[in-house]
């Protein structure tokens, strides 16, 4: 009989940049069980938001994740603005959209590089990261920082686009589009890439829906779901763009979805530049936000980002809850790992584009769905009682009076 081998990986490990611990049980070369230990990046962001006012909390929220910082801050702000009943100026919505799509551009290019690195294709890693610099240059030009842009503020944006910026963005879009067409061609026609990634990390359409996958992972399983289309925000209702799906249900599909989404993002940026209205970039916001609750949704590069905000009429939020996209994808990842080879685990883990700093939120279930919080002793008693009712009563077993060892 073969013996199962348990391999612990992490928290510090060479493949990913962030700490996470994977306990992988192997039978031969195949993964039969994958256990994921996260929480190393838990800093207590949600709690610290409760002791800051809405402006200060914005800067904390922006630092939930360094890659999708604009997604988190926009998601948080659209909730707060909804509570306050303030509509942001149209020009500000355009600028937020442009930033959101620039972020998607650089995040997808970054992911493509990391995916290349995980399968030993380091040339792709270097290529995409070089191209990504073009996007970061634009971001640095527009807001002064390469990551954590700080462009958002309550009621609008802090900086306006100048005419010369628009020319620069157009030039960058042309260059990225040219480079991306090369990657699309590579993804769709390169035999080696297809051979390496096809059939790896399978996630069927049913499983994707069952485990609540979001973003490119869900779309690569053939589900046409995109918050920008399903529940549009900012100016997405009027923008023509395609929701990219692919139904190969494997890592290969996720590559294709992401490279094609880069082209869609460029399309959206161009639309925004063409149709940008003149006007203010910031609306007046009240200092105190009226009491109420709001759930706001945003399509981050990794999938749907959900923020819940509860206001109590003061200038300090009572509760801010962040449900980052990576958090939703963990469950499907644990499912994907099962049945694949150990050698495929790095690319399967990387394929959901995991972001641990997004994920590591603490959750306490308090009276969820009418249930009580139970402690260990209560569960133990429940277990004993449950099996006693089925006729298995261990306490009635009579032990021999004297046992000879």
């Amino acid at each position, binding site marked *: 009989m073969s013996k199962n081998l348990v391999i612990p990986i992490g*928290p510090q490990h060479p493949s990913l940049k962030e*700490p996470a611990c994977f306990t992988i049980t192997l039978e031969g070369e195949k993964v039969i069980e994958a256990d994921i230990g996260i929480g*190393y990046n838990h800093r207590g962001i949600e709690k610290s938001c409760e002791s800051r006012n809405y402006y200060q909390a914005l800067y904390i929220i922006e*630092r939930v994740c360094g890659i999708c910082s604009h997604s988190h801050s926009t998601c948080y702000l659209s909730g707060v603005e909804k509570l306050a009943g303030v509509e942001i100026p149209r020009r500000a919505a355009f600028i937020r959209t442009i930033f959101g799509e620039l972020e998607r551009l650089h995040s997808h290019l970054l992911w493509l590089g990391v995916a290349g690195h995980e399968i030993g294709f380091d040339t792709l890693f270097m290529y995409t*990261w*070089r191209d990504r610099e073009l996007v970061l240059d634009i971001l640095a030009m527009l807001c002064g920082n390469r990551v954590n842009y700080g462009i958002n503020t309550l009621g609008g944006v802090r900086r306006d686009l100048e005419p010369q910026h628009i020319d620069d963005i157009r030039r960058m879009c042309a260059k990225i589009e040219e480079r991306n067409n090369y990657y699309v061609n590579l993804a769709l026609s390169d035999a080696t890439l297809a051979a390496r990634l096809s059939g790896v990390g399978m996630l069927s359409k049913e499983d994707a829906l069952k485990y609540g996958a979001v973003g490119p992972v869900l779309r690569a399983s053939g589900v046409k779901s995109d918050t920008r289309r399903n529940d549009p925000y900012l100016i997405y209702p009027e923008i023509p763009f395609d929701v990219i799906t692919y139904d190969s249900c494997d890592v290969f599909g996720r590559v294709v979805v992401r490279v094609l989404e880069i082209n869609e993002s460029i399309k959206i940026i161009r639309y925004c530049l063409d149709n940008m209205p003149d006007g203010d970039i910031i609306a007046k916001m009240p200092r105190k936000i009226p009491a109420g609750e709001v759930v706001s949704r945003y399509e981050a590069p990794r999938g749907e980002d959900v923020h819940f905000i509860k206001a109590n009429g003061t200038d300090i939020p009572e509760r801010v809850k962040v449900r980052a996209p990576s958090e939703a994808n963990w469950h499907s990842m644990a499912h994907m790992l099962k049945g694949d080879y150990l050698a495929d685990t790095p690319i399967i883990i990387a394929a959901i584009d995991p972001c641990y700093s997004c994920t590591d939120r603490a959750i306490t279930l308090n009276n969820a769905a009418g249930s009580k919080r139970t402690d260990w002793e209560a569960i133990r008693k429940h277990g004993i009682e449950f099996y006693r009712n089925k006729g298995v009563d261990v306490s009635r077993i009579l032990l021999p009076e004297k046992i000879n060892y």
Partner: protein
Amino acid sequence: MNPLKKLIKWAQRKSPWIIHFNAGACNGCDIEVVDALTPRFDLERFGVLQKGSPRHADVLVCTGAVTMQTADRLKNIYDQMAEPKFVVAVGTCACSGGVFGDCYCVKGGIDAVIPVSAYIPGCAARPEAIIDGVVKLLSTLEDKKLQPKNPIVINSEKELADMLDEAEAAEENTETENFEENKAKEDNENA
């Protein structure tokens, strides 16, 4: 100085191998650290190479404020590295805790857990800043003795010169003693 130590010092200056650890960062600085290794900035032209294992690395590049969960792990990784070793704190959070400084799950900057040789502030620290920090760290290696574990207080240049002389003399003595002992052992075995 011992020729072997000279060689190690030369190699470290010419090709420091780094290991990157995220102690609870937001990802921004991590990406910038990796960015510094990619074609636009290309830290590899200074001989810097990223390694996966702490046992192979000379410089521990840390990002982010230290969370409760990573504090022990960070210490472990630092202990696994071979002497002489250096720690570079990249980003404001790594330097002081930054915006996360007063969060309940955060211990503070990297120096709350392990000694740090170079601080590179910024949110996020730009690749140019990271390169500048690493180059400055390397240039300190050139003209100073390797940093001792417990800092020594030196009052005058003469005191320093005496100390260095003493250290060298002590090294030479141990070497010659060892050599003589070994030779005596070999002689015994031969006999």
